[in-house]
């Protein structure tokens, strides 16, 4: 039975955190139990901010099952969790599941999609979300796009924004993206953080974590505190999320001086940066390699050879995301979470 009011979709990638970086770096675990727990914290926050309905896809690793079970318990009732509607979609256990779930959520008119995953997951959701804003939570290996933030506070921000209590101009941020075009393969893909060009000829196990496997990095934004390939730009020529340009660096394994950068959790590599510069929006940049692979947000996806002419273009009009800090700062300034004592377990209403 559909409740009136905004619906929020939640997508937690069951597959994130099981790739090659477990072997090559000290990437940790983010188990299905942890993901289910994060979702429950989101639901508590949504409950407190008046969200009455949530869409959640099913999965094979027990995340949705654990959340469903918890939703019948006393804490869910006390915290007024939103009603859970399961999206029962055919599961292929690939990224196609993420994309299908996002597409369905947009079709059902969700006000926002909360995403639990790494850069790859966020990229997949963003590809389908259009202008539906994302509430980003990091749980994957490379987390440059989603901020490292606790689910409860993210949920409060998301709930306040989705229930209309925050002006969009304050609560939403327009993100940059990189468009990767390979006309000879009829490919046009996005990256939300960076595109790395690798001399590795094949997609292989996807993850890249060695400096000798990198020739060039193009970044939408590059924060000095980031983990992942954008950290090379972040520690050499940082660019903020807000700046209307990006950055690029070129690497050479024979450089005598190297930049120590955390390319994966626990993995600091010496990267020989030989050139760098700004990435101007709307300009199609060619690559410095004639053949190799392109890694979008940390995972090799595209193999290109002599006959291909891939280009990278910065687009300032990428996906929308919730600016959690701005939302909560606004909520604090305006005491949005102050309610009468006897209504403290009732969702906060619009002032």
């Amino acid at each position, binding site marked *: 039975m559909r409740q009136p009011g905004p619906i929020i979709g939640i997508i937690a990638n*069951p*597959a994130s955190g*099981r*790739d*090659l970086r*477990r*072997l*090559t770096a000290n990437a940790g*675990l983010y*188990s*299905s139990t942890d993901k289910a727990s994060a979702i429950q914290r989101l639901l508590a926050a949504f409950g407190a901010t008046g969200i009455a309905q949530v869409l959640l896809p099913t999965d*094979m*690793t*027990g995340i949705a099952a654990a959340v469903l079970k918890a939703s019948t318990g006393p804490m869910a009732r006390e915290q007024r969790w939103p009603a859970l509607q399961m999206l029962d979609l055919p599961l292929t256990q690939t990224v196609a599941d993420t994309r299908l779930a996002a597409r369905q959520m947009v079709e059902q008119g969700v006000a926002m999609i909360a995403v639990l995953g790494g850069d790859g997951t966020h990229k997949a959701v963003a590809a389908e979300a259009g202008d539906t804003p994302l509430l980003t939570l990091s749980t994957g290996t490379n987390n440059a796009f989603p901020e490292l933030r606790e689910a409860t506070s993210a949920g409060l921000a998301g709930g306040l924004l989705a229930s209309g209590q925050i002006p969009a101009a304050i609560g939403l941020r327009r993100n940059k993206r990189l468009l990767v075009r390979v006309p000879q393969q009829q490919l046009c893909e996005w990256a939300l953080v960076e595109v790395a060009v690798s*001399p*590795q*000829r*094949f*997609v*292989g*196990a*996807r993850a890249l974590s*060695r400096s*000798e*496997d990198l020739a060039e990095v193009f970044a939408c934004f590059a924060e000095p505190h980031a983990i992942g390939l954008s950290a090379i730009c972040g520690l050499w020529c940082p660019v903020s999320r807000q700046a209307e340009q990006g950055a690029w660096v070129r690497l050479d394994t024979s450089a005598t001086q190297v930049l120590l950068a955390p390319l994966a959790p626990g993995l600091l590599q010496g990267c020989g940066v030989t050139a760098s510069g700004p990435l101007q929006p709307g300009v199609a940049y060619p690559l410095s390699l004639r*053949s190799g692979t392109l890694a979008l947000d940390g995972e090799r996806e595209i*193999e290109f*050879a*002599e006959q291909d002419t891939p280009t990278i273009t910065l687009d300032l009009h990428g996906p929308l995301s919730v600016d959690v800090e701005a939302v909560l700062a606004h909520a604090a300034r305006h005491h949005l979470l102050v309610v009468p004592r006897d209504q403290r377990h009732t969702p906060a209403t619009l002032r």
Partner: protein
Amino acid sequence: MSTQLSSEQLLHAYEVMRTIRAFEERLHVEFATGEIPGFVHLYAGEEASAAGVMAHLRDSDCIASNHRGHGHCIAKGVDVYGMMAEIYGKKTGVCGGKGGSMHIADLSKGMLGANGIVGAGAPLVAGSALAAKLKGRDDVSVVFFGDGASNEGAVFEAMNMASVMNLACIFVAENNGYAEATASKWSVACDHIADRAAGFGMPGVTIDGYDFFAVHEAAGAAVERARSGQGPSLIEVKLTRYYGHFEGDAQTYRAPDEVKNLRETRDCLLQFRNKTTRAGLLSAAQLDAIDGRVDDLIEDAVRRAKADPKPQPADLLSDVYVSYP
């Protein structure tokens, strides 16, 4: 560690996979004639796993396998004709006709045997890795087991011991989605076999087993880890078997056209050919030449195996022991 392969290495990888494919496809045909005794369990479809892992191993590294072991044997360098003769139960077989398809072994090549007991190979490679450790060598040991065997206590015990004793072991779970007629989606509680690794104190990764390069990279990282004394790891390779659990299994538990679709869209040999030719690293002519050579090899092996003599009555009683008494 670079994972760039030279043309020789690429050609060798293709030849290994193609040999396995041709061997298994031929067995599928020959088995139907009724001339091959007992059971065979075909590896067709899974070639990238064997080839991707074995590319990193030397003769002194050990592997143990299971009932679906022809691919592992071929990739480890066991003689193809000797294997075919063994499957036909002939005296010229690599085990003198006394082992058969499920017990092909060649200890000189570090192949501790195909095994009729799934999961039994895991403690055995913990043992060969222990031996290497006691001898002060950096040889590694790899066990191949399936999604069904991943639920056997032998695998759990070996994984725990390998971590506790810091052994140079690699556990390769070839998850083809089916343990006989039971889907791994049902029988593996945590759904991803790789997730069990953390419970046994080692890293676990899930890899696309249709892509030789994905397996090769992950195996390379695991082998390097093991050789440098950092201990065991688990690689879950997701792939498919084209044929039934055994020859004669009608596979009614699978969706119709499931195998056909996979052969057409994800086949590991097709992917390898497409990637390497598109990248300009190998030519179609080179790959076709290998195809021809492999076809001749298999044809020769079958012809000779069919013609070879069976073991003699005296062979029944020999080699129960090394020494009598």
